[in-house]
């Protein structure tokens, strides 16, 4: 079946360091979304990328969608303790099939 692979599964960083999580699909995606889940919370939508090569920024967060629309990344610059949580990507494979497939998530821990 269609899968979205996400790495790494865990990441521990010192506060102030950068963080990146990657998503890869074996087949082309129509769009990709990113969510953040705080410990004990539920996933909250961050952003959606639709166009090939698209780059979007939200303050310290930079989201990229690959040229082939098969991969995506989320990069956080100068992490803060408020960035703690699990980051999920979620891919839509085609607009005729609306199943949004989530990656396995990257759990970010910040060392103060």
């Amino acid at each position, binding site marked *: 079946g269609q899968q979205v692979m996400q790495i790494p599964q865990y990441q521990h960083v010192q506060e102030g360091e950068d963080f990146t999580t990657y998503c890869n699909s074996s087949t082309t995606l129509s769009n990709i979304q990113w969510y953040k889940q705080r410990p004990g919370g539920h996933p909250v939508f961050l952003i959606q990328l639709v166009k090939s090569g698209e780059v979007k920024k939200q303050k310290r967060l930079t989201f990229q969608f690959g040229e082939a629309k098969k991969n995506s990344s989320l990069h956080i610059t100068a992490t803060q303790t408020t960035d703690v949580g699990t980051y999920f990507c979620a891919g839509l494979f085609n607009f005729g099939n609306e199943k949004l497939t*989530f990656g396995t998530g990257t759990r970010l821990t910040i060392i103060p």
Partner: protein
Amino acid sequence: DVKVTQSSRYLVKRTGEKVFLECVQDMDHENMFWYRQDPGLGLRLIYFSYDVKMKEKGDIPEGYSVSREKKERFSLILESASTNQTSMYLCAGGDGDRGLGAEAFFGQGTRLTVV
């Protein structure tokens, strides 16, 4: 403020019981979804619905069914609960033409334990 509300935060049921998980949304959107979340596996789609009385299977529908009698309510049913259905269950409502083409709003989750 948009809300998706799940009826229970925690639930403990016995093996073989019929279990109902309820979800209500106030977004007036047509699309609703049930996921389960397990460590290392991310979120896996169980069932989704685009309209009242309409349902489609997700990736792991076995052992589950759903009901959508009203637009705002989407119920997940475990016909005969088993221990391997112990999990966090998340309901979501979506915008967009069909499916989750735009932002998905999640409920707070129901942690179900089957003993």
